[in-house]
Structures are given as structure tokens and as C-alpha cells.
């Protein structure tokens, strides 16, 4: 009930309790490090799972007095949770749009870009549809992508639009027809390939790298899109010392190095 008092400016206040109840069930929060006082609560895009877990370990080693609690989900789900007053100190989104919305209603402060990523195709290890290059994508009968609200889904749609001239109208349409499921975050998209149920899935390069029982097919540079990650403090937490130093650490030389080890690229 506490969270229900935090009403967003959209005038949806009467729905809040219902929405919060539904939202609360969709998250899990793995904790990193030793139990200590007041962890820094970081809500991060699902594609940051390994990168931020490693980052949190490095951060706690450098700041023994701090503790980081990570929670991963699709950026759009995290945004919804933060809008409804979920207890977060930091939001790391896989695109700018979801952060911008939170900045507009004053929930997130001063977001900055800290990494970039690109898209790749993953296919099961036994590659049942025989997808060898990007141009074979239409031969995959079961393609899984992200929902339109999930950053991975939005980037995928942009990439497929870029690919239309290359694939030709009929093959581009075939790719769209072969989409059999839309999943709410990049990791769930990838899971359909890891389970062997999908012939191909479009995920981030970093997801493809860390995938189990899957092969990566590169997407040509001229049609690929750049995903930019943003990190910002949740209003009210921005001046907490730990929060400041976490955001600083994410963008530091050491932080960049950790993320690069997990396949992320730098951002200007």
C-alpha cells in the first residue's frame, strides 16, 4: 500500500494498486556480495546480467563498505516498476526511450550513456534450419524476437527495416511471417533458441556470446543497429554516496574494461 501513494502525473492513480500487485510478481532479485547495511539497489536490463554482476563484484572489492543488489528484467518492465514506486536507486536501461520517460516525470535524474551493443542472430547448436549467414534468416521457420516495448524488440524491428532492401520484399515479408513468438526481454528471446524450440532468434551480440548450446550468426554492419545503454539515479537517491560512486564506477576506466570483457562496446 505504501507504494500506492506515489502517484504518477498520468492520472492513473486508481490503477496503481492493481498494477503494482501484478508487477511485483514479475521480478527476482539476486544479491551480490556480503550482507551489509543498505545495499545500492540497481535495476538493470536483462542483457546486462553477466556484465553488471561482474561489475558489482569489482565495485564491492573496491568499496568494501558498499553492497550492490541487482535486479534484472526487460527495461520496459523495470521502468513500469520504478514508475509504481518499486524500491530502486539506479536504473540501467538498454535504450534511451524508457529512461527519457522516467526523466520526464522526474523519477530519474541525469542519465548518461555508458555502453553500446549490437544485434546478432543466434541459432541452436544443431542449426536445424541451416542458417549460415544473415541472408538465410528467412529459411528459419520459427523466429523469436522481443516485444515492441522491450528495447531488444524495438532494435530488432529497426534492424529488419534496414534489412529490407538487402533481403528483398518477399524474403523480408517471409522473415516477418516466420516470427512465432514475441518475448518480454532479450534473455527470454535467447532461451527459446537455447531450448532448441526456435530456429533463430535476434538478440544482442553480448547475449549471443554468452549463450549456451547456440551458435552466433553476424548481422552485416550496414544494417545492424547500435543499442545504447543509459544509467541514471532514481530521484531521491541521486545524492547518496554509494549511488554516486556506483554510477561513476560504471563509467570509469575499470568499469568499461569489465563491460568490454563481456562484449559491450564503449560509448562516446
Amino acid at each position, binding site marked *: 500500500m505504501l507504494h500506492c501513494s506515489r502517484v504518477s502525473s498520468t492520472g492513473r492513480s486508481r*490503477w496503481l494498486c*492493481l498494477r503494482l*500487485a501484478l508487477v511485483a510478481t514479475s521480478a527476482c532479485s539476486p544479491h551480490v556480495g556480503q550482507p551489509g547495511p543498505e545495499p545500492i539497489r540497481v535495476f538493470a536490463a536483462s542483457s546486462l546480467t553477466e556484465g553488471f554482476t561482474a561489475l558489482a563484484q569489482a565495485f564491492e572489492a573496491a568499496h568494501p563498505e558498499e553492497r550492490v543488489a541487482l535486479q534484472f528484467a526487460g527495461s520496459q518492465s523495470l521502468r*513500469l516498476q520504478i514508475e509504481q514506486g518499486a524500491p530502486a536507486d539506479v536504473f540501467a536501461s538498454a535504450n534511451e526511450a524508457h529512461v527519457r520517460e522516467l526523466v520526464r516525470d522526474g523519477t530519474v535524474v541525469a542519465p548518461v550513456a555508458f555502453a553500446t551493443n549490437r544485434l546478432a542472430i543466434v541459432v541452436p547448436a544443431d542449426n536445424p534450419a541451416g542458417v549460415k549467414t544473415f541472408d538465410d534468416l528467412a529459411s528459419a521457420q520459427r523466429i523469436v524476437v522481443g516485444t515492441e*516495448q522491450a528495447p531488444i524488440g524495438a532494435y530488432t524491428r529497426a534492424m529488419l527495416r534496414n534489412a529490407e532492401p538487402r533481403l528483398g520484399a518477399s524474403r523480408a515479408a517471409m522473415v516477418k511471417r516466420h516470427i512465432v*513468438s*514475441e*518475448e518480454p526481454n532479450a534473455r527470454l528471446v535467447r532461451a527459446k533458441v537455447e*531450448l532448441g*524450440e526456435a530456429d533463430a532468434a535476434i538478440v544482442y551480440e553480448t547475449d549471443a556470446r554468452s549463450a549456451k548450446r547456440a551458435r552466433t550468426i553476424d548481422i552485416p554492419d550496414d544494417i545492424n543497429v547500435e543499442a545504447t545503454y543509459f544509467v541514471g539515479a532514481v530521484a531521491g537517491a541521486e545524492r547518496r554516496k554509494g549511488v554516486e560512486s556506483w554510477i561513476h564506477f560504471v563509467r570509469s576506466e575499470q568499469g568499461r574494461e569489465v563491460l568490454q570483457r563481456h562484449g559491450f562496446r564503449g560509448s562516446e
Partner: protein
Amino acid sequence: MSRGFRNAPRWIATALALALVVIVAVPVVALGVASTPADLIAGARDPLFVPALWLSARTTLVSLFIVVVTGTPLAWWIATGPRARTRIVEVFVVMPIVLPPAVLGVALLEAFGRQGLLGPLLEQLGVQIPFTSSAVVIAQVVVSAPFYVESAAIAFRRVDVDLMLVARTLGASASRAFFRVAIPVAATGLLGGAALAYARAIGEFGATLLFAGNLSGVTQTMPLAIYMALESDVRAALALSWVLGAIAIALLFAIRVAPQGLSGRTRARLGGGPLQ
């Protein structure tokens, strides 16, 4: 003084019971009053709404049909068959009642998925289950069948064996005795079980999301559309919730109120009929 003390446990009990009523009733009431008609109309116009409604209607009718047609003979066998064997079968059939839906979703993938137990066989037959509406139906059948079979078996157990024997001695065949005696006598239990099973099927979420996937018009049933709409247009989630809520109330009516009239009629028919 002593009177007050003696009454204390009763007050505590009342308070506890009232707390439960409040915690159960408030969300239902909140759903009812939370949205304006304009919100609901806007929600119903969302592109997710109609395909989800239509898909849920189709798949639940198919799964209910499958559950009743296969569950009725199974329940009869469980009620009248050799106890040692029926017990084992019954345990398997009711298992999904206690299994978490997410576990069922994984189990269904392990059974019918491409890498699953039956995967190679299905592949040879050219049948694909995950990501199709068939997967939605299978998930619904698995989660809802136990509710029907259990109520039907309980109802069939109450059918008087002598009544069946009399029907047979009067020249009715076994199947005629089943349809003219056992079914009418057990009708209340059968309908109640079917209503419960339908409620469970139309609300199925976890197993469907894992096993069937999520695509509007193919596998995105109303509960999945509610989940997805929360991230796009909350009004669509509300409109779909209203529809599911109304169906739930109708089913509750079918379970609680309708059987009384029905059993009365059945009793009258059997009581005044030639069988006694």
C-alpha cells in the same frame, strides 16, 4: 468481566475472519471500480484485445470439449474400477493441481518440445507443437482436466450401484444405464467440475507463456495479453481483466447456484420415474 474474557476468543476469531474477507474482497471491488467506461472502451480498442479474446474463446472451448469427452469415461473408471489400479492413475491425473504452472510449462516443453521426449516422433510426423494454438490447448487441458476428473469421480462414486443394477435388469444396456442413470444422477458434480475446469483453463498463464510462446492471435490468450498490455496500454489490461472477471462470476454462479435447481429436477425425475 469473566464474560468479556470468555468472549475474547470469539472476537479474535471474528477479526481474523474479517481480515481475510477484506483482503480477498478489496482487489475484486477495486477492479470493479478502478476504471471508467471510457478507459474500458479505449482498452477494448487496443489491437491486443480482440485477437486475445477470440483466441481464448476458441482454445478454451476446444480444451473443455477434450476434457469432458476424455475425462468422463476416465472418472467413471476411477469411481468404479479396481481401487488398487485407479489410485495410481488418479495420482497422475490430479498431479497438475499441486504442480506450479511454471513447472508444468517446463515439463510440457520436455515432453512435446523439439528436444523433448516425444520431439523426434512429432518431428517425423511433421507435427510442431510449441508456438502453435495446439500448445495453448494442451496446456489448458493438462491444467484443467484434474478439476473435472476429480469432481466427476466423486459424483460417480455417489451413484447408487443398485440403481444401475435395476436399470440393467429392466433391460437397459450398460451404456444406456450409464447415460440414463449415472449421468443424470451425477450431473451436478459433472457440471460443477466442468465449470471449475473451464475457469482454470481460461485463466491459464504460466505454462502457456513457457510452452506456447506469445504471439497475438496465435498463442497470446487473454491472461498473456494482460501481462503484455501492462507494458504498453494499461487500459487494454483492465478491459481484458473485466472480461475475465465477468466470466469468473458467471462460472461461480454455474457452480453455486445453478446446481440446486438442476439436482432438484434430477431428483424429481428419478423419484417419480419407473426406476423406483
